[in-house]
């Protein structure tokens, strides 16, 4: 039973971690994009 | 086809002549081989039977010597910016690649000429063994084909020393698995050798063809 929980636990943490990573990356790139589009030359 | 062979031969001769003139890589590789065996001599428990661990030592040494040798073939050209000059000639990319891979294979083979007797001295394995020589020749050809393909990629990026082992070693696994078995048999492990050699020949053909086809895309611009 502990093997089962360990295996699924690892998989869920890894996949959830990857989803969180994607979301955060997407947010930070989108925020940067807004900055660049609004700020013009100020955002070097 | 004749033009292809002529270009490949010329490039291989050029590389080997440069090496013979500068005498940089071969002495370094020879020293590396002896040092690797010395480390293995103390790292492994030789008391349990030197000839049983010898195939593994041979393989570790060959793969890492191969990385050194193949890495240099393109890195040196890159440092002197002579790769660009070579690529400006109308010669086909595949022929240039074949020439460089051939020279690299010859360098690794020279390294094995040091390795096998040294292994005999340190681990008591047979030195003059036709099966061993056959297995090593097969393995060297295939490893050089794949290794030079990734060396060409790695040389054109930053941090090429990091990239070459990471790309080459996983793809060499078929050679390590089948060649490893062939070397074990050749060094007296018992078993049948012809099947392994035939398989290595198949791998050689496959990967040399694949690497030649891919060379065109790797050696562009």
């Amino acid at each position: 039973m502990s093997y089962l929980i360990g295996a699924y636990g690892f998989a869920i943490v890894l996949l959830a971690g990857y989803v969180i990573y994607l979301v955060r990356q997407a947010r930070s790139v989108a925020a940067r994009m807004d900055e660049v589009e609004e700020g013009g030359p100020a955002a070097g | 086809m004749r033009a292809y062979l002529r270009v490949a031969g010329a490039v291989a001769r050029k590389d080997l002549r440069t090496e013979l003139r500068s005498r940089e890589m071969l002495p370094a590789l020879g020293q590396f081989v002896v040092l690797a065996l010395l480390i293995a001599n103390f790292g492994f428990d030789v008391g349990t039977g030197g000839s049983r661990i010898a195939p593994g030592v041979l393989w570790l040494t060959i793969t890492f010597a191969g990385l050194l040798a193949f890495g240099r073939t393109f890195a040196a050209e890159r440092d002197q910016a002579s790769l660009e000059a070579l690529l400006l000639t109308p010669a086909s990319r595949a022929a240039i690649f074949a020439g460089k891979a051939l020279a690299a294979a010859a360098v690794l083979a020279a390294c094995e000429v040091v390795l096998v007797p040294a292994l005999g001295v340190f681990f008591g394995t047979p030195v003059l063994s036709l099966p061993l020589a056959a297995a090593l020749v097969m393995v060297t050809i295939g490893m050089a084909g794949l290794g030079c393909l990734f060396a060409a990629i790695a040389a054109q990026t930053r941090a090429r020393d990091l990239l070459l082992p990471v790309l080459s070693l996983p793809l060499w696994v078929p050679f390590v698995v089948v060649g490893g078995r062939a070397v074990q048999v050749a060094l007296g492990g018992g078993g049948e050798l012809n099947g392994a050699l035939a398989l290595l020949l198949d791998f050689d053909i496959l990967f040399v063809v694949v690497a030649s086809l891919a060379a065109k895309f790797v050696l562009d611009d």
Partner: protein
Amino acid sequence: MAPRADLLRLAAVADALLLLLATGLVVFYAPADAVQGVVQKIFYLHVPAAIAAYMAFAVVLVGGLVYLWNESPAADRLARAAAEVGLVLTTVTLVMGSIWAKPIWGTYWVPWDARLVSTLVLWLIYAGYLLMRRIATPGRQAARFGAVVGIVGFIDVPIVHFSVTWWRTIHPPIETAAPGALPPAMLLTFAISSLAVLLLAAVLIGYRYRLEALRERLAAALDR
């Protein structure tokens, strides 16, 4: 070419529900295996993750071939996205398989199992692919290198599998629990979980693709 945001969101929501259903089936519906006990339930994520990873790497292969053919940046972006998702799924496969092997085979790692070794090599190849993509300066050359590594790597994997199988035939055989035909309840659970994981892989690749496209737009905007 880019997947539409609303479609992607719809797929993500549908997949979340599907994953929930699959979890319910695995926990409450699928019977414990007569021989292996509950540990066998690792199979419901382990195998679909492996299938999805292979499909993702097949996408890398096709993306690479298309790129070499017409230099479409979209094909390369798709290949890169699929390589990363495939690597995550391969990690899931490897670790779950290793944990399963401990109680069933008595060891985490069996060097003569062709599937184990070829999955590890698969992982190493695409980890190398992604490292190369990070090191190489983005552009046509990096995309071409990626295509070559993606294609040659994909060719290598079945050969590794074959090599280890060959190696094993000349070695003392080992006992493995041969799975018989699956009872219907297990089959249904497996089918649903496979569907859920495959859709998850597709959704992740879709989002990863959009992220990559956004990054490229940002880089282009910064260049101006």
